[in-house]
């Protein structure tokens, strides 16, 4: 299954979350969404977002100034 990618680099709170929510709607159930962001607040925010929306945060990693989150759509 292909992974959808959302580039949210340079965007600040709450835009990465709002755009991720929208992008997830285009992902089939069980599918993956990869999000790239530079907002350090996004690390905690994506954890909370996934817990609240009952989706799975598959991974949360950092490469330099870029954070990468992979979310599996469950709901």
């Amino acid at each position, binding site marked *: 299954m292909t992974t959808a990618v959302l580039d949210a680099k*340079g*965007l*600040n*709170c*709450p*835009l990465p*979350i*709002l755009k*991720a*929510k929208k992008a997830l709607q285009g992902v089939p159930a069980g599918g993956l969404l990869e999000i790239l962001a*530079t*907002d350090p607040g996004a690390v905690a925010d994506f954890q*909370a*977002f996934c817990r*609240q*929306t009952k989706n799975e945060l598959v991974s949360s990693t950092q490469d330099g100034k870029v954070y990468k989150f992979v979310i599996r759509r469950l709901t």
Partner: protein
Amino acid sequence: MAALPDTAALDRLISERLDALLPQKLAELREKKTASMTIIATKGTLDWAYPPFILASTAAALGWNVSMFFTFYGLNLLKKDISDLKVSPLGNPGMPMKMPFGPDWFRGINWNIPNVVEAGIPGFESLATVLMKQTIQNKGVASIPELRSACIEAGVNLIGCQMTVDLFGFTHDDFIPEVKEYVGAATFLPMARDADVSLFI
């Protein structure tokens, strides 16, 4: 003859079972319930437009039911054109005055401009607004029209305060058609009572 039920023992048993089961039951109910939030938005400046719209759009993204009640200067945020919201550094000692351009050392300077100077220069507020908007753009922060659109798209209920509409001489035509209703405090309070989160901004 059947023994009479020992009510005291029965009560004790029920109480013990309730103590054991209730926390889990309540947690299950809480988990099942869709969270909700109500916000009273009372400010009509560019800076104060952010907290209500950020919280409302984010809550909606989390799947919560959100209603926003716009009253007094907050009604400004429901106008058809909100691209001209302004911020005032006058009488606002908490607001840093930094320049959104130039080298880093220059951007880092906090220009401490006395109120009497700010008040005396015509157009100072407009200048501050231009600088603030540039900073917002530089930092990748959403614009207010963008956040309001996100709220509307996510189904946030926008509610206007009818009393303030009358007080300030507005008509419903001054506001965006997405405003669901114009009501008073008696309609808002029961909504706030049922909400998990209720904020006054």
